[in-house]
């Protein structure tokens, strides 16, 4: 029993000498772990007292052959150590190559370029920007805002459209259900890039010229569509417009108060109150009334045709419209499937039970089915929002100035600074993605069905 160990000690010591042969490439590694091993054992064996060694050996429960490699702690450490070394080496290799290459090509590094002025202009922007004065950082902001703008509108559109198509898909009307299915299948089995390009080239390039703009506002000439974009009147608030804005805020607060009051009233006397209608009326009438009373202080900058173009008003480029439509329609098809799956996931027995106590089918939907369906719909819906933002980067194929096409392509070609620009673009997407993940986790925690 204990006699075996000094042999092991000697054996390892001998192996140590063998292992130090210069021909074995693994010698340094073997040497180090052998020496570690030997040290460990020497500590144990060095005690002269056989009793102590017995006690110590009983404590650490040695096997007949202490299998170094199969010890879990050793393995865990070894794996992580080796992984860290490998990853570290790869990273060091890439970084050193990159810095060397950058030097050789005379490319600059550092984020200082963000304050220098960009020489080009951007058609579609939300912030004040003058070419020659605006900085590259402004360009970055413009790109981010443009991405968020088209994604935001597409999210709103696809949620509404997708919801209706999902409900249609569930309807008992065979024809409508199959029609919705056809729509969904066609959209989902075609690449989104093909759809984006199709909308741009196949639809929006067939728009009439500026002179023959299509008037979408039925004669009022404030909503004009042509091959340069959608021109619409932009509001010019007058002096007293702030009163209407205040009235709107008051109306919003009023809606919350109304909801609270109507719930309390129902608790007290049992009669439900048509809150939805009343809130809509409040939101429409209060600001509307104030607006009219203050003399309609809203002027409109109406686009007027001067020469070959429209002057005034606000215009959305065709690339934007094409991207918006493509994103909305594509994501609506995916959302429709989520809605359908979510509503089907609610057990039929739930609606049976609700109907059995005499509830109207509409109430059953609102009070029993939809709250439970939301659990299944909201998490994939939130990741769909992220996908809309990611798909908005296809703007690069049709020339809309989102962050990828404006910053990662145009600016990179103009200014260089590849690493920094790539890093900033990555940071934009990753920040939004992390925010959305946090949102989803928060939602999941809140609506967890309480179980044993």
């Amino acid at each position, binding site marked *: 029993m204990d006699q075996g160990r000094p042999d092991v000690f000697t054996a390892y010591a001998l192996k140590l000498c063998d292992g130090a042969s210069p021909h074995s490439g693994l010698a340094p590694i073997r040497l180090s772990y052998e020496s570690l091993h030997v040290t460990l054992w020497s500590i144990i064996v060095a005690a002269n007292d056989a009793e102590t060694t017995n006690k110590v050996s009983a404590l650490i429960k040695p096997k007949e052959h202490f299998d170094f490699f199969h010890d879990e702690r050793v393995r*865990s450490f070894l*794996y*992580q150590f080796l*992984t*860290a070394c490998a*990853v570290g080496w790869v990273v060091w290799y*890439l970084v050193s*190559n*990159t810095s*060397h*290459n*950058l030097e*050789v090509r005379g490319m600059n590094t550092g984020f200082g370029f963000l304050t220098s002025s960009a020489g080009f202009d951007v058609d579609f922007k939300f912030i004040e920007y003058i070419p020659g004065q605006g900085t590259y950082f402004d360009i970055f902001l413009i790109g981010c805002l443009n991405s968020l703008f088209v994604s935001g509108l597409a999210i709103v559109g696809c949620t509404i459209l997708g919801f209706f198509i999902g409900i*249609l898909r569930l*309807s*008992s*009307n*065979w*024809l*409508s259900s199959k*029609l919705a299915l056809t729509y969904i*299948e*066609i959209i*989902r*089995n*075609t*690449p*989104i*890039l*093909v*759809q984006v*390009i*199709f909308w741009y*080239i*196949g639809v929006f*390039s067939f728009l009439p010229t500026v002179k023959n703009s299509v008037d979408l506002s039925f004669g009022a000439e404030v909503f004009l569509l042509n091959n340069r974009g959608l021109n619409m009147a932009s509001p010019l608030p007058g002096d007293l417009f702030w009163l209407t804005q205040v009235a709107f805020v008051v109306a919003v607060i009023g809606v919350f108060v109304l909801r609270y009051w109507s719930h309390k009233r129902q608790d007290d006397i049992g009669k439900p109150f048509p809150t939805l209608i009343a809130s809509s009326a409040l939101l429409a009438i209060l600001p509307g009334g104030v607006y009219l009373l203050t003399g309609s202080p809203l002027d409109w900058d109406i686009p007027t045709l001067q020469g070959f173009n429209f002057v005034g008003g606000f215009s959305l480029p065709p690339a934007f419209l094409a991207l918006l439509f493509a994103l909305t329609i594509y994501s609506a098809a995916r959302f429709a499937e989520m809605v359908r799956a979510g509503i089907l996931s609610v057990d039929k027995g739930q609606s049976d039970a609700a109907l059995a106590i005499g509830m109207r089918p509409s109430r059953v939907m609102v009070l029993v089915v939809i709250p439970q369906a939301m659990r299944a719909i909201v998490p994939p819906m939130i990741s769909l929002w*992220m996908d809309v933002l*990611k*798909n908005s*980067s*296809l703007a*690069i*194929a049709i020339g809309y100035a989102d962050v*990828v096409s404006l910053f*990662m*392509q145009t600016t*990179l070609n103009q200014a260089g600074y*590849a*690493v920094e620009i*790539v890093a900033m*673009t*990555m940071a934009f*997407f*990753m920040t*939004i*993605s*992390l925010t959305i993940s946090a949102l989803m986790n928060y939602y999941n925690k809140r609506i967890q069905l309480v179980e044993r």
Partner: protein
Amino acid sequence: MAIVTKQPTPPRPAPLSESSVIGWVRINLFNSWMNTGLTLASLYIVYVAVSGLGVWGFSDAVWVAKDRRECFAISVDGACWAGVVSWIDNIFYGRYPRAELWRVNLGGVLLIVWMAPLWLPRVKAKIFIGLSAVFIYPFLAGYLFTGGDKGIFMQTMVTVAMVCVAGNTLHAMIGVISGRSLPEFLIGFLRMKEASEKNQRNMLLGILSLTVIAAYILQMNWSLETVSWTKWGGMFLTLVISGIGIASALPGGIILALGRRSKLTLIRVLSISVIEMFRSLPLITVLFMATTMFPLFMPEGFVLNKLVQVIIAVCLFYACYMAETVRGGLQAIAPGQQEAAHTIGFGYWKTMGLVVMPQALRVMIPNIVGTFIQLLKDTTLVSIIGLYDILGMLRAISQDTPWRGLYREPLLFGAIVFFIVCFIMSKYSRHLEVKLSTGHKTGNE
């Protein structure tokens, strides 16, 4: 006061208003005012869409013409499919030399022949066939498509591939006919059934070595003309990129998913970072990053051509997506399976490989096929960075002089091609789902 029905009532057919076509129409289409309105609106939409598309796409369309002008001369309102027809070769093969197209076709046929045994009954060792298809076929295909001089390594791999495909086919045929595997058949053929295991093994190894040497000698004299990757294009390029992507996404995804579930902190943190990073970025950004950053990453003088850069980017990206799918599948496996495996003495790798993974993969197959479909569709993004995949070719038609301005027809053709392929794949995945779930009973909770 018993009330007893002596004779059981015979079942009667449902009244006409219930069964039959009239009944079905009444229930499904017209059973309420709203439904009636919906039906009428839907019928109108269908009529407009079908008649409009039908007239434009079929009855008024021009199928053969020299150029766009001629199309207009023949039919002003119809679709000018003639442009697509005249570019068909480009659309499917890119600019691959027409004389060498047989190589592309041979590569495709070889893949089908190689993979076919996976669907045949009574063929054993399907895992080996599948793995060989993933790891060995690419070398053969790579050489077929690229050509040029073969170094020692390439010669070896081509030899191995040739032996593999021949062996697989023989094995499949023997399996289907007699239910035995190739080694069993050979042993029987050589009447060595009674010989010891060692002798049998040696004999098989001998046959294998002879075959390998013969194949090596055979292919030494074969050489193919070099076709640069820049000539690859169209559907061929799309399939190459997505094929390599699919082949590496699943193993890569499994590794990342296992890493994410690992108890070792460093590995877990690394896996999560990589997965979350790639999943939060759009693919086009990753492709851009690859084409701008890879030249910087490589040591001086070492140039990765654009196709390789794109393939690496696509593989990394989709490995992360696949990792999430695999993770979902692993989570669906009850922890009791792992516990049971541990009690019979399986360590981590044995548990994963023999118990957990097979079950998880079966559950995940619909999602895996879904990711593959997504990958196939996303390969179209490489057209943005200048690789002429099928979408790139279709868009190039409108730049060609005789067909200048022809946008819609090529795009629609591309949409139809993708739709057919993706639709078939998703139907197959649903079929798989049904087939696997009927054989797989989940335990009651």
